[in-house]
């Protein structure tokens, strides 16, 4: 039966892919800024005693991790795990992390332009061809890790293989400051040893179902038929069948196109009149036009985001058949949406306008200057 519906598999082993993962990125940056934190259990989250127990851990340093603290855990739980109130909580400083991330990307670009960022602290690089002219990928990785350390004083782990899945598995294999290479002929052996939870897509929900079926390791997964995995796990099963065989032909998605361009503003002093809202929408629209023009984009959809004093956030969109990109149009559309969803009396804390359904603006239909203010 299975033979009737055999899906052909091709394994592209010709590429050289690196996955770079910054070790405890946010925590390490904070330690760099305040070296005395290095010996303390540092948790990047707002202190739960200030938030009434709310909030989650974004990162923890290696000292805190020894107590069992990990990211995505509630900050309250982290505080409980670390004894004697030793835990140091620090609210995340995203602008700082972003600037460090940009520094690291500059280093990447010295090696290749085929970079797919996953987050501030993670990226795939396709170095099948590298700008340094190095023959061995391991040398490319050594260069990257050294350059990152020198520029940012931060430690990273790298995985090297012939596809994204294996590179990511490899970078995770030895941390911190690890460097793991998986060659095509080693792939199946490497994956067979891994516990099933390490496979992408096998999380809290799927792992117990795998265990029920007796699948505890990569080797167990490798023994399953494709049909069995598809029947039990659908699309995930289809992917796992390939991954455990070291197959993942997804390209490194560099130059990922922006899906939307937006601009928003938070008001410390909430807006309380329609006139204020109108003025702010105009400002947002003018800046948005500038951003769209800079990216040479225009879009079919305009989205308005409104947040009131009660922190209720409403978004509403409107789609057109003609592309929108001019400040006056954006403002008029945003105002029109506002009249259907907004109430200034509620006190407006945030307004945002986003243009999506973008297309490259390779042309512009010239507009008649109908009103005096439109004349150039």
């Amino acid at each position, binding site marked *: 039966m299975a033979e009737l519906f055999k899906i052909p598999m091709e394994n592209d082993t010709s590429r050289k892919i690196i996955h770079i993962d910054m070790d405890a990125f946010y925590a390490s940056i904070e330690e760099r800024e305040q070296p005395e934190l290095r010996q303390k259990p540092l948790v990047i989250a707002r202190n739960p005693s200030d938030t009434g127990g709310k909030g989650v851990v974004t990162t923890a340093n290696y000292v805190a991790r020894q107590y069992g603290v990990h990211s995505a855990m509630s900050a309250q739980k982290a505080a409980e795990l670390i004894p004697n109130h030793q835990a140091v909580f620090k609210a995340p400083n995203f602008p700082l992390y972003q600037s460090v991330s940009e520094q690291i990307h500059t280093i990447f670009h010295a090696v290749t332009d085929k970079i797919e960022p996953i987050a501030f602290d993670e990226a795939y690089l396709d170095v099948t061809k590298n700008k340094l002219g190095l023959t061995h990928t391991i040398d490319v990785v050594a260069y990257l890790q050294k350059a990152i350390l020198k520029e940012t004083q931060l430690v990273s782990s790298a995985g090297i293989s012939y596809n994204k899945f294996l590179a990511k598995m490899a970078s995770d294999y030895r941390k911190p400051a690890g460097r793991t290479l998986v060659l095509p002929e080693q792939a199946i052996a490497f994956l067979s040893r891994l516990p099933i939870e390490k496979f992408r897509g096998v999380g809290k929900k799927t792992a117990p179902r795998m265990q029920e079926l007796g699948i505890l390791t990569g080797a167990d997964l490798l023994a399953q038929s494709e049909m069995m995995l598809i029947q039990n796990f659908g699309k995930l099963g289809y992917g796992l069948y390939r991954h455990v065989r070291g197959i993942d032909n997804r390209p490194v998605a560099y130059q990922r196109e922006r899906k939307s361009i937006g601009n928003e503003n938070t008001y410390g002093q909430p807006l309380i009149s329609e006139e204020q809202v109108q003025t702010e929408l105009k400002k947002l629209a003018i800046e948005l036009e500038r951003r769209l023009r800079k990216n*040479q984009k225009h879009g079919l959809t305009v989205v308005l985001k409104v947040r009131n004093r009660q922190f209720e956030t409403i978004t509403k969109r409107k789609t*057109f058949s*003609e592309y929108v990109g001019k400040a006056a*149009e954006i403002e*008029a*559309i945003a105002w*029109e949406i506002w009249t259907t969803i907004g109430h200034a009396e509620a006190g407006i804390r945030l307004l945002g306008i986003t243009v999506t359904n973008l*297309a*490259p*603006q*390779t*042309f*512009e*239909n*010239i*507009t*008649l*200057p*109908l*009103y005096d203010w439109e004349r150039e």
Partner: protein
Amino acid sequence: MKFSINRTQFIKTLNDVQRAISAKTTIPILTGLKLVLSQEGLTLTGSDADISIEATLATTDEKNQLTVEEPGAIVLPARFFSEIAKKLPEDQMTIAVGDNFQTTIRSGKSEFTINGLDANSYPHLPEIADQNPFSIATDVLKQLIRQTVIAVSNQESRPILTGVHLVLNSGEMLAVATDSHRLAQRKLTVSVPSDVNYDVIIPGKSLIELSRTLADGDETVEIRIAENQVLFKAGNLAFYSRLLEGNYPDTARLIPTSSSTQIEFNAPVLLAAIERASLLSHESRNNVVRLTLNTADNTAIIYGNSPDVGNVEETLQFENLTGEDLEISFNPDYMKDALRSFGQTAIMINFTAALRPFTLVPSEDQEHYIQLITPVRTF
């Protein structure tokens, strides 16, 4: 209320009135058709709040075979009622309103009873005084609508541009529409006292419906304008539309007064070529065609391209080309709409520069009708 009437005559009038009735309306009673019966005749009314249409079937018109037994009024659910009326078996039908607005419709051996609504809860149509009315020949008005509504904007972000600007000044009528990428303008001479002046904006949608409602048989349409309503009267029909509020932009200054390149085409020939050139450009996200005019070689070449599909080039057949060389890009849809509005005539296209609007006028009469199109800047 009770009457009997010729079914065919009734359905004809019902079809006209029903144009104003929308199934989706925020005011429930407007999904209904209002019937008012007097000794003079039966009046049907439909409305969607923007447009209202009223038509009367007179007792004196023998074709109607209208027998009034008891005058009165009722509102009936338009959709069901019209379907019933159209499917009844005999030429004649009788409608009688009983208790609680229950209405019986009889024809031959068939009898329907449907629930009606109190006619007193139906909105009142605006009263428009009959001072300063003026008249236009029906075919001229329909042509004017056809020539201008194509340029009306369908984007609600600038409501004023969804209408046609109608100005009557010293017996000259000017109708203008623009969506800011194109503009259509029509001039007419109307016989009215010279002190009758108007400046109104009529929703494009209303004019399209009006144009469909006007029968070719009616020779003239009487137009009455009030503060926020306009009324068109033709034959037994009264068509009301709300007017758009606000100031229409001053469009006169947008029309170029000189040109540097002129080309004359037979409108249908150019239309066919543009339709071919736009076959591929439509497929791409950039709906643009390019026209290259070379006066020394006396050639006009149109080019359309869609990166994913392919491209098209055509050497155009034209009557006459003068002036400077030019390469200009534009949206072919705008050109097609404009060309269709000219029908089977020769037209002049006047260009000033690659990034300036160009105009289309009939070769015979360059004064009364003009279409303006803005070009596309390509990067």
